Every structure is written in C-alpha cells, then in structure tokens.
C-alpha cells in the first residue's frame, strides 16, 4: 500500500467512525432512558399518572422519528401524519379483535403491528404517488386534507365478522346483517372497543429501536443519499441521474409505515379506539416535536417528543401555570435546538450583542 492510499484510508476511517459513533449514541441514549425509567418503575418512584404515559410517549417518539424522515431528510412538509397512524391503529385493532383468542397473545400482537405498518405503508404510497408531484405549501395542504379524509372515512365504516366472513357497511351496525353470534368490530364513530391491551413500555421501546434501526440505516445508505440530495438540490440530483420522485415516494412510504406501527402500538395500549384522537392536532403535535427537536435531527426528535409528552403531566400539580411553562419551554426549545436555521439565528443574535462573539471572517 502506498502513501496516498494510506492517507485516503485514514480519512475514510475517520469519516466512518464519526458516522458510526453518531448512530451508536442515539441507540445508547434510548436504552439509557429506558433503563432509568424502568428503574424508577420497579422501585416505585414514579406516579401512576406518569406510568400511564410511558407507552404513549413511545408512540410519539416513533411518530416523530418517522415524520422527521419526510420533513427533515426528504425536505417535504407533511401535515397528515396522524392519518397514517390512524390507519395503523384501526387495521391492527381490527386484526387483533377479529382473531381474538385464535392466536397466542404475543404472536397476534406481533402480526397486528406488522399489519398496521403494512396497511399504513400501502396507503402512504397510494397517497404519495399523486401528492408528491406538489411542492412546498401545496404539498402541506394536500397532506393535511388527506389526513382528514382518512379520519372521516373511517368514521363511517362499520365492519363485523361472523362465520360467513367479514361484513362491511357505511350506514349502521344493523346493516351489517351479522348472524347471531357474529361480532361487531368497527362501529362507525364509536370506533373499536376492547382491543386486547398488549402494549407495554418494553415493547414500545423495542419498537422505538426498530424504528431507529430502519431510519438510521436508511439515511446512511445509497437510498438515503439520494433522498437527501433531492432535498438539497432537485435539479442537481436529476443531473447526476437520481430518479427524484421515486426516492421521495420511498421516504414517504417508509415514514407512513412507521407511523402505522406507532398507531398499532397506540391502539393496543388504550384498548378503545376512535378516530377523533387522530385529528389535525395530532399531526401538528408530531410536527412540533420534529421542528423543536431540530429538523433532520433524530436525537432531537426523540428528546422533544419525550419532554413535551411528559411535561404537561408532570406539571399538573401547578395547575394554572401549566400551560404558561409549557409555552415558555416551546420557545426555549425553538431557540436552542440544532437545526441549521436555528444555529444561523443564534449567530446573528451574537453578532448584535455588544459583548458577543464577532462573526468569523469568511474567505
């Protein structure tokens, strides 16, 4: 091996190690948080209120990471993420309730999660094909609309199961024409009730790790480079032969599937499901996690989701001041995250301060 090659390998090694470290830190962070929380739970140092939000926190973490794939890495603003969570929740809930005791609990839950993710992914792809032709604000508006459409469609769906198979109606559960002994599963606006509560904190964290595995490996691969190059400069990406639309669609589909997984986890936590939960507010909430954590920053998404889910519950004792503190925290996170725009903002502010650091001269 000659000298230049040695030198090149050294540089490559440095770059690779930095990348590996970056990936590893995220896993370690999640596992450490899990260990701490689990420790608190076993020693009984955690209130029941907080115990109740452990799984929902996992749901939001997964949703935030998956939305970050679209918003941060693919560079498209999507406001319909709750729609995909809704699909995942309903399909997995339907499956679990339809199968009932036909399969062992653990295996049934596993299949339910896979089905939730699969259906959400398929719907994501079908919506993505027309929608991703749009850019910027238009895309945001249309994804918002699709999120609401999904919610409202599921609102009028009645489905039941008897020995003749699955029955479907959009009018009422009476119209299903079930045999005696058949069971109603989805009851329109009432949604699905009595879904087996299989979700636990441990399973939630495992799913968070699965999500991290998929997203981190994806963005550090050929496909990830294609996705990010499309975000940075669409025209240049096409000029080097990258099929831009295909990779945008892929990011959107993967993101929808992971949101579906989050939805499945959610459905099997609360047991009772209706569409009203998956409205516009939830999409915005998840987007808030992504933006406050720093767009394109996965660790930031995780931390923002955890803090902003846990905080309102922890502040319950302060009653009147609760939302005030929450709002101040939102502003603080906006100012102190690691998004490039936030960094630039801080740089500008520093320049103006009399005692601040002066901007470095650019060559």
């Amino acid at each position: 091996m000659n000298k230049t090659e040695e030198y090149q390998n050294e540089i490559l090694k440095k770059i690779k190690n930095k990348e590996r470290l970056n990936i590893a830190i995220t896993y370690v962070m999640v596992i450490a948080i899990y260990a701490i929380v689990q420790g608190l739970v076993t020693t009984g140092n955690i209130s029941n209120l907080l115990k109740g939000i452990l799984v929902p926190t996992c749901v939001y973490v997964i949703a935030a990471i998956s939305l970050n794939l679209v918003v941060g890495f693919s560079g498209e603003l999507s406001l319909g993420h709750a729609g995909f969570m809704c699909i995942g929740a309903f399909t997995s809930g339907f499956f679990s309730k339809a199968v009932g005791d036909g399969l062992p609990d653990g295996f049934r839950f596993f299949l339910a999660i896979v089905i939730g993710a699969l259906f959400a992914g398929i719907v994501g792809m079908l919506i993505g094909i027309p929608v991703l032709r749009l850019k910027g604000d238009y895309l945001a508006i249309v994804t918002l609309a699709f999120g609401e459409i999904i919610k409202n469609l599921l609102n009028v769906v009645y489905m039941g199961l008897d020995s003749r198979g699955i029955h479907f109606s959009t009018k009422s559960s009476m119209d299903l024409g079930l045999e005696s002994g058949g069971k109603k599963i989805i009851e329109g606006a009432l949604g699905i009730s009595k879904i087996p509560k299989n979700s636990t904190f441990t399973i939630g964290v495992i799913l968070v790790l699965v999500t991290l595995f998929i997203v981190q490996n994806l963005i550090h691969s050929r496909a990830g480079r294609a996705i990010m190059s499309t975000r940075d400069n669409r025209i240049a990406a096409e000029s080097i032969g990258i099929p831009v639309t295909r990779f945008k669609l892929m990011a959107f589909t993967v993101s929808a599937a992971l949101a579906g997984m989050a939805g499945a986890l959610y459905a099997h936590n609360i047991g009772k499901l209706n569409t009203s939960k998956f409205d516009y507010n939830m999409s915005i909430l998840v987007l808030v996690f992504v933006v406050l954590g720093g767009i394109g920053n996965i660790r930031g998404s995780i931390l923002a989701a955890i803090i902003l889910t846990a905080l309102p519950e922890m502040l319950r004792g302060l009653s009147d001041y609760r939302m005030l503190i929450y709002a101040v925290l939102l502003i603080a996170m906006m100012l102190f995250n690691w998004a490039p725009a936030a960094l630039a903002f801080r740089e500008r502010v520093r320049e103006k301060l009399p005692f601040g650091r002066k901007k470095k001269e650019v060559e």
Partner: protein
Amino acid sequence: MAVLDINHLSISFGGLHAVDDFNVSIEKGCLYGLIGPNGAGKTTVFNLLTGVYKPTEGIIRLNGADITGKSTIEINKAGVARTFQNIRLFKGLTVLDNVKAGFHNHYQYSVLSGIFLLPRKRQMENSMNERSMEILKVFDLEREAGLLAGNLPYGKQRKLEIARAMATEPKLLLLDEPAAGMNPNETAELMETIRFVRDHFDLTILLIEHDMKLVSGICEELTVLNFGRVLAQGKTAAVLSDPEVITAYLGA
C-alpha cells in the same frame, strides 16, 4: 465519429427564439468552448442538451444515438454530465457523499440491503469510497472529504461540482462558467485541472465561459453565439480574430 452532433437545434419561448438553428459537431477528446454575450442562449443550449428543456426543432446525437427530448436522468445515464452556472451542490451532505451521490447508478444495491446492512451494501460502499477518494484527489479535495459541502470556500465548491459530475462516468462533460468568480490564480489552476481531467478520464468537454484568458488558453475550437444564432465557428485562434466576433462580443 463525433461524440456530440447537434443539427438544427431550435427552441422558442413564446415568440422569442432563444436558440435558433444551432449546429455543432464535437470530436472525441476535444475541449470545445461556447461563448457569447449575456443572453446569447449559451445556458439554454446546455439545458437543451441535458433535457431540462425540450427542443422545438432539431436533433441531438451522442455517439450517434439520438438523445433528443429524453429526460435529464436518461441523458445522464447515456453519458452527459454537467455543472451549473450558480453552484448547485448538496450542501447538507459531506464532500465525500456529494461524490458518492454521483455514483448512484454505477454502484447499486437495494434499499433492503441498505437497511439490513447486508454484505452487498458494505462491498458497494467500500468501492464507492475508494473511487470517490480517487476523484477527490484529482481535484485536491481529499482533505476536505468529511466536511459539509456548504462549508467549502467558493473555488473548492466549483471543483467539487466537477468532481461530482465526474462520478457519473460521463463521455461528455458540460461546464457552465467554471471560472466564474475565481481570481486569476484560481483560474490558472482550474485550467490545469480541466486539461488534466480531459486527458486522465478520456473525456470530451464543452464549456461556457466569459473569461477570455481561459477560453483562448484551453479551448481548441469555439462557437460564438449571439442572439441565439451562431456567429462564428471553428479553431479558437481563427474565431477570436474574426472581425464580426470582435465587434459583437469582445467590443471594438
């Protein structure tokens, strides 16, 4: 045989004939210059060549194959790569990843082998890394491989754009004002690099440039455009001494 053969290429936007009856034939290995005053239609020719615009008339042949009206992606796969007048790098990616993005269609592995870290991913990534470092070395950018492309100084950004284009393994390289914004030293260095790239990678290069020193220094043949029409064509020295060219472009 000519690498690039353009016949009767025309495009009009509304009533404006941005490019009108443009003909050129570029031999393999040639360093060909396209010059002309601002708004003469030079970049439009590039956009027609790379499929950004579809011509209203005319045929473009690359090594004899008709590439007229094909998409940007197909044309790149056929062997045409370009740089841009206003730099278009992937600013959020590292210098290394910018070049690796250029290898997109040359070292392929599926999304699943990417996610599940299958052996094929590692093989392809390793070959890509090696090849990318080779290219970066040519442009003296290997030390900056780990930096974000957006943090490079201007001159290096220009070079990185050429490096990224080279990764697509083109037969024909289109450079749109590669020396824009460079000081005389950087321009001189760039001239050396362009010549070296042409010889080293066995390329044909078509470039747009305003810097007359660069044009007369490295271009072997020239076409002068004015108001979308060819004003003069031929060997550099002959074209630059053409009285019509001098009045139209260089100023009396």
